C-alpha cells in the first residue's frame, strides 16, 4: 500500500499519545498490542479499498487515545467539563449561523450564502440530536447518555493530538492519576485464582468434566487421556487435604496430552480448566491442616 510507512508513523504517534495516558503498569503492553494491530488493519483483506483501510487504521489509533483518556479515572469528569464547553460553544455558533441564515433569506431571498448557513446549522443539530438519542438509548441512565454524547460528539470535532494536549492542560495526564480505578496494573503474581474456594473449583470442574468443547475439524487433545487426568484430580480434590497429594498442581501444570487429527477436546478450553484445577489443588495443599505442600510456584498461571 502506498504511503504505508508514513501512515504507520502517524498511527504509531497516536498510539504513543494513547499509551501515555494509561497507568504505568499496562502502558507498555497496550502500546505493543496496539502497534502490532496497525499493520494488520492496513492489510485487512476484508476491507477492499486502501483508503478505507487507512481511515480505519487512523480511526483505530485515534479511538485508542480517546478510550485511554476516558479510562483514566479522575480525568473523566474534567474531560466532560471541557467537552461540554466545546460542544456548547459549537452549538451556539451553529445555531447563530442558522438563525442568521434564516434572517438573511427573509431579507434577501436570492443570496445562496444564507442557505448554506441554514444547511450547516441543521446538519450540526441533526448530528447532535442523533448522537444524543443513540447514547441515551444505550446508557443505563439518561444523564450518563447525555455525558457520553457530549464526549462522543466533542471528539468528532477535536483531533487526537489536540485532545492529548487538552488533557494535559486540564491535568488529566496519567502522571497525576493516583486512583487508576478502572485500569489497574497487571495482577500480582502468586496464587492468582480470585475468591474461588476449592469447593467452587470442584463444582466448576463438575460442570466441565467430560463436557469440554470438542473440536470437529481441528486437532484436539485425546479425550481418554484428559478424562483420566481429570478423574485423578477429582479424586484428590474430593478426598480432601493429604500430606502427599496423589496429583499435585505441578503435575497438572506439566501434564501433556496426545493430540488427535480431527476431533478431540479443544485445547485452550482444557488448558483453562486445568488451570482452575491446579489452583484448587495448590490451595488445598496450602490449607492450614496440610503438613507438606507441593511446589507452590505452580499456582502462578501466567503464561
Amino acid at each position, binding site marked *: 500500500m502506498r504511503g504505508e510507512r508514513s501512515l504507520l508513523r502517524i498511527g504509531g504517534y497516536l498510539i504513543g499519545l494513547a499509551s501515555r495516558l494509561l497507568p504505568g503498569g499496562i502502558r507498555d503492553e497496550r502500546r505493543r*498490542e496496539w502497534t502490532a*494491530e496497525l*499493520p494488520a488493519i492496513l492489510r485487512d483483506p476484508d476491507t477492499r479499498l486502501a483508503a478505507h483501510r487507512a481511515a480505519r487504521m487512523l480511526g483505530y489509533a485515534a479511538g485508542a487515545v480517546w*478510550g485511554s483518556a*476516558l*479510562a483514566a479515572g479522575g480525568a473523566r469528569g474534567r474531560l466532560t467539563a471541557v467537552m461540554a464547553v466545546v460542544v456548547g460553544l459549537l452549538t451556539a455558533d451553529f445555531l447563530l449561523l442558522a438563525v442568521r441564515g434564516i434572517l438573511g433569506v427573509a431579507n434577501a431571498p436570492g443570496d445562496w450564502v444564507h442557505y448554506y448557513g441554514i444547511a450547516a446549522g441543521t446538519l450540526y443539530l441533526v448530528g447532535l440530536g442523533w448522537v444524543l438519542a443513540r447514547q441515551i438509548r444505550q446508557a443505563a441512565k439518561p444523564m450518563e447518555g447525555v455525558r457520553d454524547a457530549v464526549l462522543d460528539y466533542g471528539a468528532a470535532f477535536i483531533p487526537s493530538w489536540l485532545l492529548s494536549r487538552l488533557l494535559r492542560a486540564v491535568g488529566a495526564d496519567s502522571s497525576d492519576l493516583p486512583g487508576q480505578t478502572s485500569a489497574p496494573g497487571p495482577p500480582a503474581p502468586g496464587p492468582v485464582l480470585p475468591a474461588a474456594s476449592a469447593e467452587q473449583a470442584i463444582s*466448576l470442574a463438575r460442570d466441565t468434566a467430560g463436557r469440554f468443547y470438542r473440536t470437529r475439524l481441528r486437532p484436539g487433545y485425546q479425550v481418554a487421556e484428559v478424562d483420566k487426568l481429570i478423574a485423578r484430580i477429582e479424586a484428590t480434590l474430593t478426598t480432601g487435604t493429604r500430606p502427599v497429594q496423589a496429583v499435585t498442581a505441578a503435575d497438572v501444570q506439566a501434564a501433556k496430552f496426545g493430540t488427535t487429527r480431527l476431533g478431540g477436546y479443544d485445547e485452550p*478450553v482444557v488448558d483453562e480448566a486445568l488451570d*482452575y484445577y491446579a489452583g484448587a489443588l495448590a490451595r488445598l495443599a496450602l490449607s492450614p491442616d496440610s503438613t507438606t505442600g507441593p511446589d507452590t510456584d505452580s499456582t502462578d498461571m501466567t503464561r
Partner: protein
Amino acid sequence: MRVVKMSAPLERVLRAFLDDPAAPRYGYDLMKAAGLKSGTLYPMLGRLEDDRLVTSAWETPQQDGQRPRKYYRLTSEGIRVATLELAQVSASRPRAPGRPARPVPGILG
C-alpha cells in the same frame, strides 16, 4: 458468581466471543465483529480480563518480521458467565426484533 453489569456494547462483545469460543480473537477482529470503536473495546477487554472472564496471550513471533499480536479468548468461566448473561438478556427481551433466536455455537455439552 461474579456480577457482570450488562450493557449493549458488552453484550455485542460477548456475542462476538461466543461465535467461536475457542478461537483466539484480536482486538481489531473484535471491533469489527462487535461494531465497536477501539476506545470502547479495550477498556472493556481490560475489565473482562480483570474479572478473569477473558484471557489474553501474545502470538508466537512470525518469520516475516511482523510484530506479534495479542489475542483474547474467553476462559471457561467466561464462556459460562457469558452464556448465562446472554441467556438472561434474551429472556428479558423475548421478542427482540432483528435478532434471530439461534443457539450459541460451542456451548459446553
